[in-house]
């Protein structure tokens, strides 16, 4: 069952890209930044904040759409990051392609990249809180200088715009160049670009009260192999924190990867369980 859901996620991510391409071809208002469904306009919360800050007014007509996005984030958690984000999909696709076409070179680049990254990160251990500080400065800058600065460099926006321009006018844009920025910023952060991405941070903050679809370890069966922690793309350590709704993007990889099938999905998890590791059960 879980294997099917993980497969479904792969198809779903590709389908979102196809959906945007098809919408651009048939001239329907569907992008990664904003979607119009009848009278309801779903909109990127960061875009909304930027537009409101830069103009110094709240765009009231957007409030229903923004509220819907907030409710979705609370109900489904950070699903945007693992299920729709085109930047992540592009990154994974690039990695897969390089591994397939040039296996030796790709491996070399990966190793040297990891080394440089570790060297940087030993000196400055930057994490989510630093991302929040950067976001705060960014918002202050947007409010003072009155233009939505992040929108220009947002990798999701750049990919979305390029997909649309490709379908509409059959050309790609030079702003693809800015896609190097997340890679450069990813050098300094513990979890790579994920710590600094404003969209992901906003989704994480909105998803804080989320209590649905929580992966939980059954410690009677767990072998403490640590595979779920190592493979997690979002830095969730299931053994330490019982429910990390800020980080967990519901990709369900941990459920698939567990050898013993010790992780199961709880549809609703309101109680804060304390894991045996924290309580000292596995101290040795």
């Amino acid at each position, binding site marked *: 069952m879980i294997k099917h859901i993980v497969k479904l996620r792969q198809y779903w991510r590709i389908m979102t890209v196809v959906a945007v391409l098809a919408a651009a071809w048939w*001239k329907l208002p569907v992008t990664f930044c904003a979607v119009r469904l009848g009278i309801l306009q779903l909109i990127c919360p960061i875009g909304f904040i930027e*537009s409101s800050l830069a103009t110094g007014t709240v765009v009231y007509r*957007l409030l229903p759409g923004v509220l819907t996005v907030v409710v979705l984030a609370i109900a489904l958690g950070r699903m945007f990051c693992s299920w729709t984000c085109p930047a992540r999909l592009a990154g994974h696709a690039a990695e897969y392609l390089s591994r397939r076409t040039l296996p030796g070179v790709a491996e070399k680049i990966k190793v040297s990249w990891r080394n440089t990254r570790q060297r940087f990160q030993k000196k400055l251990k930057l994490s989510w809180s630093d991302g929040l500080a950067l976001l705060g400065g960014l918002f202050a800058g947007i409010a003072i200088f009155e233009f939505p600065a992040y929108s220009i460099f947002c990798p999701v926006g750049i990919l979305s715009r390029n997909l649309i321009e490709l379908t509409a006018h059959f050309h790609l844009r030079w702003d693809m160049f800015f896609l190097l920025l997340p890679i450069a910023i990813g050098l300094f952060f513990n979890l790579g670009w994920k710590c600094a991405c404003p969209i992901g941070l906003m989704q994480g903050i909105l998803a804080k009260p989320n209590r649905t679809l929580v992966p939980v370890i059954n410690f009677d069966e767990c072998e403490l192999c640590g595979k779920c922690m190592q493979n997690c793309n979002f830095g969730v350590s299931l053994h330490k924190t019982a429910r990390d709704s800020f980080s967990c993007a519901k990709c369900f990889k941990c459920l698939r990867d567990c050898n013993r099938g010790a992780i199961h999905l709880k549809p609703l998890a309101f109680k804060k369980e304390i894991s045996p590791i924290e309580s000292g059960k596995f101290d040795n």
Partner: protein
Amino acid sequence: MKSKRVLTSSKTNQETKVPGISRRRFLRHGLQAGLAFGLVGTIHSLSRGGEYVRPPGALPPKAFTSKCMRCSICVEVCPSRAVRLLDLTWDLKNISTPVIDPAFGGCIHWKENCLRCADSCPTGALDLAAGTAADYKIGRVWLKPEACVNCMVCFERCPVEGAILFPNPDGAPFTRDIDIPTRLKLVNSPLKPYINTNTCVGCGLCVHYCPQNCMYLEPLDHLT
């Protein structure tokens, strides 16, 4: 219960042991916020201004730059594909904002009452509430008479009567193609069409269809 107590006590221990950490952290976060702020400021100061032909219903240039969130919905829904996003230029603040590019098409609002871009704009940077079709004036066109061959394609394509005129040696200039005597509009005739800048709305249809590429779409001079 026991486990909970262990957990909380260990946390408080950590906090009391190193009191300097929070202050250092505060300083670091302050520096980071300053860095992000400085980057936005740098983009602001490096950015050069520019004037563009925006889709109909656009706010004044400055308000448009701050309100548009670069979602590219206007490019997506434009039926004539006339809207293009600005690419990398030194006008950094306006990167990825929509402009009308006659190389791809002209705005058909004055022909078909379209305004689909303004209708689907989420932020209201393209505003529907500006008035009737004639009130939307997005640019102006000029024609280079030396290259013109009097093909009259611009007369066929123009949605606004009286925006393109043909000189009449005997009186008021012609506004329609069928009124012009054939002897006046020969290829080598010295008389060429010209633009009435008061009535021309700048849709760019004539520019898009001009076979000689001797017409140009220009932004209006905005006062703000």
